[in-house]
């Protein structure tokens, strides 16, 4: 996005659906990454993955989830965000950013079944 966006990231970006350039759903924004600048903090990336949502659940649940879920996240650079509306539209495919890996893995398995 080239223009300075006018929105509240916590209200308009966090917990919004991410959609890639092909219209595929590729996760929800789980956390926001800000970089401090002399003008104040600037939104630089969106996090998708357990590293983003684990700090947002009660501590006990987070500790239990860490036993089951691998700590990782995909960092989507803010420059790839094309549009902030009902959904967050990206200007690249999910695969290019490393999003939607689990769905693609599940799809490879499912495509062996008939009528998939």
């Amino acid at each position, binding site marked *: 996005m080239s223009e300075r966006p006018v929105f509240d990231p916590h209200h308009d970006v966090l*917990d*919004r*659906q*991410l959609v890639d350039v092909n219209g*595929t*759903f*590729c*996760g*929800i924004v*789980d956390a926001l990454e800000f970089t401090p600048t002399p003008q104040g903090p600037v939104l630089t990336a969106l996090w*998708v993955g357990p590293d983003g*949502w684990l700090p*947002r*659940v*009660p501590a006990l649940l987070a500790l239990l989830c860490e036993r089951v879920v691998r700590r990782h996240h995909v960092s989507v650079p803010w420059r790839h965000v094309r549009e902030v509306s*009902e959904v967050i539209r990206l200007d690249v495919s999910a695969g290019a950013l490393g999003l*939607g890996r*689990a*769905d*693609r893995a*599940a*799809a490879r*398995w*499912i*495509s062996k*079944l008939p*009528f*998939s």
Partner: protein
Amino acid sequence: MNKAAELFLGILTAMGGFVEIGELTFTLGSGVHFGYQLLWVTVLGTVGIMAYCEMAGRIAAVKRRPVFSLIRERNGFGAALLTLVAANAVNLLTCAAEVGGVALLWQLMTGWPYRALLFAALAFFIVVVWLLPFQWIERVFGLGGLLMVVFIVVLWTMQPQWSEMAAGLLPSMPRVESSRELLLWAYMGVALLSSIMLPYETYFYASGGIEDAWTPSDIVTNRVVVLVGFALGALLSVALTGLGAQYFGPRGIEPQLPGTAALAASVVFAKIGLGVAALGLFFAFAGAAIETALSAAYNLAQFAGWPWGKSKRPREAARFSLAWVVVFVAATAVVMSGVDPVQVVEVSIVFSVVVLPFTYLPVLLVARDKKAMGEHANGWFANVLGWFYLVTLTIAALAAIPLFLLTHGGRG
């Protein structure tokens, strides 16, 4: 297909899909214990589900956003996760009860062993949902459920007490002889309200609107389907209450099996009536099993941001497809453990009322938001209804579990 035909089919589908095993149990039970004295709760619940499904459908048409993504957005991650777990636990239990109900009905029709039929039901559901497009699923099971109109005809032939029925439509305190009966009346009222306003209905309806690619031009269709279709569906509930009052109550029978309900049809129309009733119940239960499984998968996929939708091929929404398969397998495992499907549904109905306020609050907040919905935001009437039901459901949610315990699980 032209708009009028689509509308007509939509209304019939909504009518045929209105009743499921929980509603069957509680409408018959309320008729047996209290005659027509709880009919007003059927009306109350029907208007409530109309209001919230209309709002959810309108949001789907205008914002192309399903209910669960709104819950996460409005309530935050933690509250949405709690709602997801609670709503999907209720979906799983309801699905288990419906799968068990289908197996019980098949046993009545075929004479085959119940456990073998549970496996057959599991295979049936997976194959049907895998192969059939979304609209076909909606229409086949919704229209098949219309066979339950036989119960309306049966009640008509029994010459119901119309004046008592009319009196029952107005809210009133019950004519009971003890505090125990009063508690049971209150429990039945809460359970009946919950069985009509089950959360999966709103989730499924809104997700279905997106599957059907609704736009703002479909708002009128949405409204007509909800108002007319659900009103006609409520007639089925009223008929079941009437059969409880007129047929089962005087005989001292409290129906606990799906086949018991079908007995009422056979007394008037013999074997044909029995067959039609059993088939109608099958479509109603099967439709509800599919809706609850898909609803659970919709909730999870929408919460996590996965690709979702029956309109996509299974490999295009891989984790969503696996999710509903897992729900069917888990639901079958629950009933395979030997629990009575009707007891499962009674527990799920009571706990679902606790989840209802969390489900409906985000729907109301978005539907009334002029910034979000523009000219399609709630008018004053929808707002009044929305807040009235939210308060009513909150009271019901607080009362549900104490009443369940005080009435020994609703048995008296």
